[in-house]
């Protein structure tokens, strides 16, 4: 019986991949982005007409004989005519400059008709351009591109802003990551504004399979950190993946898919990660059936901090399973369960309620939430011991699903969003969870017992610690002075060596390799990354240890160094030699030791 639900897909790691042969520029030009040019081009005719009308009217008025206030003959100058025509044709209408003669008034009458029409035409054209959809689009695209170009920190491109896209956007927002969003529909992008995200992320709509849209969204930007293709269309996701991989091979790409063929194609095109929610669900289901303790441990670690241990269901693997549903989901789950050696029967819900009298488990996976809930509830009435897994298609029905408290709920969008966020924001945790699903129940039971003994029955906090100058300056100084420091000492807190540890190291990443639950006497190196589970108290101790030279020394040697500069200077001559040859600055002269 296979033990690894995910790793039995050989195409997912390694294998030949398509790579580009010729470096091409990322397309980001568009024919009509210069909004001002569009505006000016279409205003050309009305403006010319207006100029012509005003010119003729002004010149004509200046050539007609008139009189001044005293009745002496006087023609208007060109400037006076222009001034008069300007305010008259623009319908402002002051009075006449001088008492006009009939000839002047006749000319002005004609000029007003022509001038008002000229202005109306020019202004009308201007407003119709401003209200025009293509002009608004050009303006919006320009704003979008400007916002993307103005990014000054790493950002992700989210392709597809459906339910999963929104969840990913919210998650990234909560983690203070920047991102740009593109989708096929303008309405969905409008939702982006309504979501009230922190940093007003740029969003735009268009044909997602054109590379230039990706270019506008920042694929060529030096800060582009990754592309997340999570539309519900396999072809679009694949084309986004192809564009990203061929134009920017250095950028990380995560893609969603719903069939195995699409998954293989995506891996061949160099996806860093492909998430098939149906396959994931099948994998987790198989995990729960075959290795209940491992499954229990993984859901406990992923649950919110302080959650109770989830219940363990055993004996699910011996008996018949019924899958009610049609399409990709039912096929995918059936494949996974069959491969795990279970007896599976697929039932079309159109043929009436499934017969579950002799079954141990039921997976309800039609595309209609109402139908799913009805079928699942009815099946549970027929067989109260049944393990019921329900597919939840839309978020609006979440309260109903929750109220019925099924054994397992599958929401594809939630699953995709969770996986994407885990891979982007907590890659080490995600790698640990991947390794965990490959462990047998004995290993998991041992780790579970250790965690319960150390952290209690509530789910622990998880933390990633990198042994570098930023996160662990004191430890780095200690290691750089050539003295060893072990994993056990790191998690022991500030209480000193040989005391019970308050935290459990789950995984250590070194040089690209992952070491699961490293032993306590495992020596640390610069650049190691540790994933640690523990209670809040333990992490307070850890923070002190990472930054205080004196604490590091105490934990490593069991002795506190002299805390103040004056005292250490006085004692230096007497004791420095006995302190394992520690240089003077480690004996208490460093700035960190001043405050201790």
């Amino acid at each position, binding site marked *: 019986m296979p033990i690894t639900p995910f790793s039995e897909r050989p195409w997912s790691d390694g294998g030949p991949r398509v790579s580009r042969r010729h470096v091409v520029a990322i397309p980001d030009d568009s024919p009509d982005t210069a909004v001002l*040019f569009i505006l000016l*081009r279409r205003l050309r005719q009305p403006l010319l007409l207006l100029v012509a009308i005003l010119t003729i009217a002004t010149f004509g008025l200046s050539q007609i004989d008139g009189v001044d206030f005293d009745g002496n003959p006087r023609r208007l100058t060109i400037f006076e005519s222009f001034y008069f025509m300007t305010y008259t044709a623009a319908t402002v209408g002051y009075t006449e400059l001088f008492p006009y003669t009939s000839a002047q008034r006749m000319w002005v009458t004609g000029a007003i008709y022509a001038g008002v029409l000229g202005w109306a035409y020019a202004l009308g054209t201007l407003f119709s351009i401003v209200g025009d959809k293509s002009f608004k689009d050009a303006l919006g695209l320009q704003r979008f591109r400007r916002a993307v170009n103005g990014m000054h920190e790493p950002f992700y491109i989210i392709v597809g802003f459906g339910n999963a896209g929104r969840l990913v956007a919210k998650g990234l927002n909560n983690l203070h990551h920047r991102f740009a969003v593109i989708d096929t529909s303008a309405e969905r992008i409008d939702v982006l504004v309504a979501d009230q995200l922190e940093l007003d992320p740029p969003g735009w709509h268009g044909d997602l399979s054109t590379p230039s849209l990706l270019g506008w969204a920042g694929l060529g930007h030096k800060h582009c950190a990754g592309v997340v293709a999570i539309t519900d269309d396999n072809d679009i996701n694949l084309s986004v993946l192809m564009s990203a991989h061929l134009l920017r091979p250095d950028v990380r790409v995560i893609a969603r898919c719903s069939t195995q063929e699409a998954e293989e194609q995506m891996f061949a095109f160099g996806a860093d990660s492909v998430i098939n929610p149906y396959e994931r669900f099948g994998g987790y289901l198989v995990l729960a059936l075959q290795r209940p303790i491992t499954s229990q441990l993984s859901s406990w670690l992923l649950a919110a901090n302080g959650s109770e241990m989830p219940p363990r269901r055993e004996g699910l693997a011996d008996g018949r399973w019924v899958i009610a549903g049609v399409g990709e989901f039912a096929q995918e789950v059936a494949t996974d369960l069959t491969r795990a050696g279970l007896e599976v029967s697929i039932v079309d819900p159109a043929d009436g309620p499934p017969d579950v009298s002799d079954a141990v488990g039921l997976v309800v996976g039609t595309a209609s939430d109402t139908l799913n809930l009805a079928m699942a509830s009815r099946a549970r009435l027929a067989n109260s011991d049944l393990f019921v897994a329900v597919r939840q298609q839309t978020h609006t029905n979440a309260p109903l699903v929750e109220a019925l408290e099924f054994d397992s709920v599958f929401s594809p969008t939630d699953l995709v969003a969770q996986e994407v966020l885990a891979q982007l924001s907590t890659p080490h945790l995600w790698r640990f969870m991947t390794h965990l699903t490959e462990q047998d129940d004995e290993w998991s039971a041992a780790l579970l017992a250790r965690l319960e003994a150390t952290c209690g029955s509530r789910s622990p906090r998880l933390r990633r610690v990198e042994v570098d100058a930023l996160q662990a300056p004191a430890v780095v100084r200690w290691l750089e002075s050539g003295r060893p420091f072990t994993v056990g000492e790191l998690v022991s807190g500030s209480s000193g060596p040989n005391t019970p540890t308050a935290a459990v190291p789950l995984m250590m990443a070194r040089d690209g390799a992952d070491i699961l639950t490293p032993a306590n006497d495992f020596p640390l190196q610069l650049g190691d990354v540790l994933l640690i589970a523990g209670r809040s108290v333990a992490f307070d101790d850890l923070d002190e240890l990472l930054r205080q030279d004196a604490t590091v020394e105490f934990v490593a040697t069991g002795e506190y160094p002299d805390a103040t500069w004056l005292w250490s200077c006085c004692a230096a001559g007497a004791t420095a030699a006995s302190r394992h040859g520690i240089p003077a600055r480690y004996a208490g002269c460093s700035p960190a030791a001043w405050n201790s």
Partner: protein
Amino acid sequence: MGYGPGVNLEKVVFGFFVLLAATLNFGYFYGDIRDPEVHSAYELYLAVVVNVVATILKFGDRTQMGAIYLATSLVASLQLIAAAAVHIHATEVSTMGLDAHAISSVVSLCGGALLANVVSVILLVIETSSFRHR
């Protein structure tokens, strides 16, 4: 660009306005710089209008040539409008009237505009001759 052997009316109109702008400008500019008698205000007025029209004609042209035309026409128009403003100030506002100082300011501003217009004409000649070569 697919115009065939026929004449492109847009180019004719534009060439007409560019040349007219330059000739009117020159006509106003020519003559003793301190003598208001030899500089007709109407010619200045027409020069301003024709230059503005030539500028508007190049709105929205995104070719390199079009952009330079727009720039030169814009310079000429601004210079001529400044000249007209000085002229109006001298005749309507100033107590001194259109004296030698005022008219020389106006004419020298027009001289600047003339330079820009000459550049426009040169561009026109270059474009026309290179069009023939193709």
